[in-house]
């Protein structure tokens, strides 16, 4: 009995200790933290003059190995380990760095908040511009980049001065932009049609928006099954829970320009719902829905579910970001399974005009010089210059070649007189394994739009026609000519602090729009659709929208004064 008591006492003490330890103890070391090599701490602060982008440098400042953590603030981001493929091996050798990647498992916003409040930040982070980025900078958690720019000119050399100005937060630069540009190249959103379904529907013309409608109708009534017996879907777009992509696709054909849920109306930046044309577009969407032309699962399908439908050749008309999905992987699989099937671009107008508008009245994508998101270096980083050197190198023309075609010695050995790699094998002939082994395209973090586009267009055009990459050809010759470059819409959302009363009202309004716009589309009658539409405006008006519009318009007018406007055709011409 006594033995038992001693044993039980011992056990109790042990349990108490264990609980105290688990409650008060420090968090176990995070695996995403850098396996910092201690000797890397003091490094290159006074370093030698940085070499320009085109020189390789294993010398001097890169002689010590350096490991840092890089965090993608996106839950959908795919991660590859650094240094296993040829591109990252090359970069690893050139900069003598090792990068540990991490990303949130779900809900990046929540994870970022936790990281900020616990001070558990990575050395380098890729994230959207906007509120979170501004907040991090204002909390003093990001490194201003100007000191590093004096040693390494890559950033200034590859960006327009106005881009750098636009990226600044409170007068300082904190982010290396991803996909910045100096010219309007590229182009992603397109209308595509399924070749076989189109043929089965009698190969109708697809030149105007009305043609698209007639085709979708025909599919609904006459081509209800694919040749394999699967049910067809007249029209679908990629995942869009709030219906924004649908609105964007249609509004374009009606000559409108949508920036978020806003547009320019009579020279002023307003909520798009105030535009009678946007209302017409929304009711048109409702008509398509009521007639069963839009997939019933449009609002509930995930990207994978949509791609599965596309891969099986079931979608007749597809409004899609055609550069995504590993360069139209679904199209390749479809063609492989059914050699006579394919998805083709609607031509000659990528966004076919509606209601007798001229193709000249229709706007293509309006892209800004600042590109998409930014990579920032946090104050946690022991050696920010090294991180800066690596990421800004990726913005150079030389890096663009390596990112797309791998380092010399594999797919190419020498450059031609235009500085383009002479490929031993067309990119399109590479198997997925080969691309993976080389690490092509994956290390575009960040990438530079102009370099990537101009190089890939030129390299692709040099190939014999049957070997060209379809997406690249389409971008180069069909979509890029429709693109417009403008900074007039940059930074408008940032003028309202999301935590302020107006910011909270904005969230309320936009949440309401996101939840209710699909109801406009899915309404059972035009009257019901119109009522929900009017309710959205009423709700927004009651919740501070006029003041939001006024604040936004001020910034917009200021932007137009500084950068000019591209809205000069059709409805926007003065």
């Amino acid at each position, binding site marked *: 009995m006594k033995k038992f*008591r001693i044993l*039980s*006492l011992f056990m*109790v*003490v042990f*349990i*108490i200790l264990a*609980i*105290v330890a688990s*409650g*008060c103890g420090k968090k176990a070391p995070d695996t995403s933290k850098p396996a910092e090599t201690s000797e890397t701490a003091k490094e290159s602060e006074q370093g030698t003059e940085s070499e320009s982008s085109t020189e390789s440098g294993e010398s001097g400042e890169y002689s010590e190995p350096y490991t840092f953590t890089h965090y993608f603030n996106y839950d959908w981001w795919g991660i590859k380990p650094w240094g296993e493929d040829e591109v990252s091996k090359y970069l690893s050798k050139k900069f003598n760095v090792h990068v540990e990647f991490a990303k949130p498992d*779900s*809900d990046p*916003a*929540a994870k970022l*908040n936790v990281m*900020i*409040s616990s001070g558990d930040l990575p050395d380098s982070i890729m994230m959207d511009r906007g*509120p979170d980025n501004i*907040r991090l900078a204002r*909390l003093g958690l990001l490194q201003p980049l100007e000191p590093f720019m004096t040693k390494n000119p890559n950033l200034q050399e590859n960006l327009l001065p106005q881009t750098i100005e636009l990226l600044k937060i409170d007068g300082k630069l904190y982010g290396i932009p991803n996909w910045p540009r100096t010219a309007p190249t590229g182009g992603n959103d397109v209308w595509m049609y399924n070749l076989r379904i189109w043929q089965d529907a009698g190969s109708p013309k697809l030149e105007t928006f009305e043609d698209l409608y007639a085709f979708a109708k025909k599919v609904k009534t006459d081509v209800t099954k694919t040749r394999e017996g699967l*049910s067809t879907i007249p029209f679908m777009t990629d995942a869009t*829970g*709030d*219906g924004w992509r649908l609105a964007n696709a249609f509004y374009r054909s009606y000559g409108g320009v949508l920036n978020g849920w806003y547009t320019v109306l009579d020279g002023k930046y307003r909520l798009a719902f105030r535009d009678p044309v946007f209302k017409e577009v929304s009711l048109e969407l409702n008509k398509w829905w009521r007639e069963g032309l839009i997939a*019933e*699962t449009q*609002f*509930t399908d*995930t990207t994978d579910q949509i791609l599965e439908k596309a891969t099986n050749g079931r979608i007749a008309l597809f409004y899609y970001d055609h550069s995504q999905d590993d360069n139209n992987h679904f199209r390749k699989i479809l063609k492989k399974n059914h050699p006579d099937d394919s998805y083709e671009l609607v031509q000659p107008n990528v966004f076919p005009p509606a209601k007798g508008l001229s193709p000249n009245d229709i706007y293509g994508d309006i892209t800004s010089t600042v590109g998409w998101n930014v990579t920032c270096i946090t104050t946690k980083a022991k050696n920010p210059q090294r991180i800066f050197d690596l990421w800004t190198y990726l913005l150079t023309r030389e890096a663009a070649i390596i990112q797309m075609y791998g380092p010399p010695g594999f797919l190419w050995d020498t450059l031609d007189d235009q500085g383009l790699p002479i490929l031993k094998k067309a990119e399109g002939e590479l198997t997925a394994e080969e691309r993976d082994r080389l690490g092509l395209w994956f290390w575009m973090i960040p990438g530079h739009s102009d370099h990537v586009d101009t190089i890939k267009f030129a390299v692709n055009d040099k190939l014999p026609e049957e070997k060209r990459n379809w997406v690249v050809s389409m971008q180069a010759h069909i979509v890029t000519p429709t693109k417009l470059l403008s900074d007039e819409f940059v930074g408008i959302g940032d003028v309202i602090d*999301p*935590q302020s009363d107006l910011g*909270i009202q904005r*969230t*309320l309004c936009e*949440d*309401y729009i*996101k*939840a209710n*716009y*699909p*109801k406009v589309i*899915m309404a059972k009658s035009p009257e019901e659709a119109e009522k929900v539409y009017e309710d959205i405006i009423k*709700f927004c008006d009651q*919740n501070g929208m006029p003041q939001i519009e006024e604040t936004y318009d001020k910034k917009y007018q200021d932007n137009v004064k500084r950068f000019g406007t591209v809205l000069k055709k059709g409805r926007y011409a003065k």
Partner: protein
Amino acid sequence: MVGNTVIQPIGIRKRGGINGFVKEFLKQVDLQLLVIPGIIHIIIFSYIPMYGVIMAFQEFRLGDFPGMSEWVGLKHFRYLFTDPNFGLVLRNTIVISLLKLLICFPAPIIFAILINEILNMRFRKTVQTISYLPHFISWVVAGTLMFDFFSVDNGAVNSALLALGIIDRPIHFFGVGEYFWGMAVITDLWKSLGWNAIIYIAAITSIDPDLYEAAEIDGAGRYAKMWHITFKSILPTVILLLIFSVGNLLNANFDQIMVLTNQMTNPKLRAFADVIDTYVYRVGISGNRSSYAAAAGLFKSVINVMLLLTANKIASRTGHEVL
């Protein structure tokens, strides 16, 4: 909190006096020590975090030291009650919780009683095992299974209904808001029925077999025995668990709702699926309005405590075992 009062060492009071207490305490010191880890656990994980509640009355911004932000009084509660979404959120929470209480609470009891009637032991064990297996599947996996199962495109349910001629076009079970409440209850039932029945089955096995024999001699039939012996014997357990359930009434399974609505991105479901927990998460944590979320969370906790106390009171009035 309330759980601490369950086991009162009644003997101590009888002897009275501090000496008696110390004596008694020393006598069973090893037993008392066994309680300490539990108390420490509760202090660390339940009481200390309650400090964060003051955030609901402050304007917390990331980077602030917790509790040291500017005081704003009831501002966040005012926002909460005037938020046009909140009424909807509250309605959904109450409806989903009540539906679950009405259907998912009695179901395991009925299931346990019925399973008790199966005489073939092997069959009984098999049924029981199959019924509680879904409990071990996480909601993420269970959600995917459900999506496939109820899918419009060749989902098992739609295929079966079509084949039987009950419907002539597939039903979009997860695409119509009005169906969501039903779907939430059905999926929850599928996942928790067998597991929740275990405690009742355990209670049933402890019933004295003599009671059944006595009832039989008195002429009780099968159903009479089920009602008067089996059900009445497990009634204390049922009441206890009912009180727990009522205390958790407003916790309408966060995981399940997030998964079934694709993290609230499914606009068709949002008007019917947004509950206080998802609302707190969406607005507070993702939208970075911690103070506001704290206010909403506090509101829910207060209601929960009130419900718990009420249920406890009612149970004690009716002369049943209470907390």
